[in-house]
């Protein structure tokens, strides 16, 4: 195979940022933490451990929604107004953390939440929360397709582009725009999650 990174390198002005060798797509130091969280969630589910399930759902959900809202509605618009060089430098340090953090929080929140709903009887058709939880599934479903189908691939593609010896500024700008728009959409959809979850908690 040809050195494709080198072939495309001359097309567009390179985007400055940290040295490519310093950019990690997946921060290896974070993997043990992710593994510990996954094991904790599995143990909570296997042991029907109510406190741990509540902890995983509440803490995971709070972080997930807060980070989504903050990135989508505060960081996103600011980033959108920065130069490509500044965006690239920010992305090189910010996005690797998101690659590990967000999927872990989502998995933790949803797995624990489903078990809690079952244990508390909220999924029974006669339960007043049943319909709200189905709506919640739909909201999460839309967010999942956007996040897994568009946002995460764009995030990883930006990082891989920046690891090249001469990153393509146009590719980074395109993918960052995609990342920022989808982060904004999922951020707004989290407002629906707030309404649903506060309804469920107070029925």
């Amino acid at each position, binding site marked *: *195979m*040809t050195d*494709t990174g080198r072939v495309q390198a001359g097309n567009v002005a390179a985007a400055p940022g940290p040295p490519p060798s310093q950019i990690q797509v997946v921060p290896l130091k974070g993997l043990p933490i992710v593994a510990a969280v996954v094991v904790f969630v599995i143990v909570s589910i296997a042991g029907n451990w109510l406190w741990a399930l509540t902890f995983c759902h509440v803490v995971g959900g709070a972080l997930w929604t807060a980070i989504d809202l903050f990135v989508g509605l505060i960081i996103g618009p600011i980033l959108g107004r920065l130069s490509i060089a500044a965006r690239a430098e920010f992305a090189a340090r910010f996005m690797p953390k998101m690659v590990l953090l967000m999927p872990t929080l989502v998995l933790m929140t949803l797995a624990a939440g489903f078990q809690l709903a079952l244990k508390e009887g909220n999924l029974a058709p006669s339960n007043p929360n049943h319909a709200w939880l189905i709506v919640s599934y739909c909201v999460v479903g839309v967010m999942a397709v956007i996040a897994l*189908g568009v946002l995460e*691939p764009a995030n990883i*593609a930006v990082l*891989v582009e920046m690891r090249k010896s001469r990153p*393509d500024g*146009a590719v980074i700008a395109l993918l960052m725009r995609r990342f920022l728009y989808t982060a904004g959409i999922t951020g707004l959809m989290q407002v629906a999650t707030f309404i649903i979850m506060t309804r469920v908690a107070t029925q």
Partner: protein
Amino acid sequence: MSSELATAAPTIQRRFPPVAELTICSLALVVIGGILLASYAPRRPPLGVPTALAVISAALLLTSAYLLSRLQMFAWERFLLVFRWALLAYVISAGMIGFAFIHDHTRGAPLVLLLVMLVIFALDVPLIIAFTVARYSSPPHSAS
């Protein structure tokens, strides 16, 4: 094609078959199927609609894989590298979802259907990620 011609247009302008779009549709269908199955928990769900969704989703995934396999001058090494690692991550993720359903006493045909959907899910996401990465690492023009 010479390398001079290959650099004549930016990578960003190269047209690719709708691999990512088809796979996102496939992902959306298994997510809808999964929501239908989960919305009946802990009762036994009707399987007609979720089965139809899983079949269409699998067909879309296979179509994507076929279109992908026909690509020339594509960054296959980078695609496979990203696909392998993403697959590992999403097999763990799908495994955890499967474990939760088995723990909740999902058995028989609903479990088989759920596992099929999880397999599609675990292939869809790595394929989208790896394709998105590799398309921007490929030469600007295909040889075909």
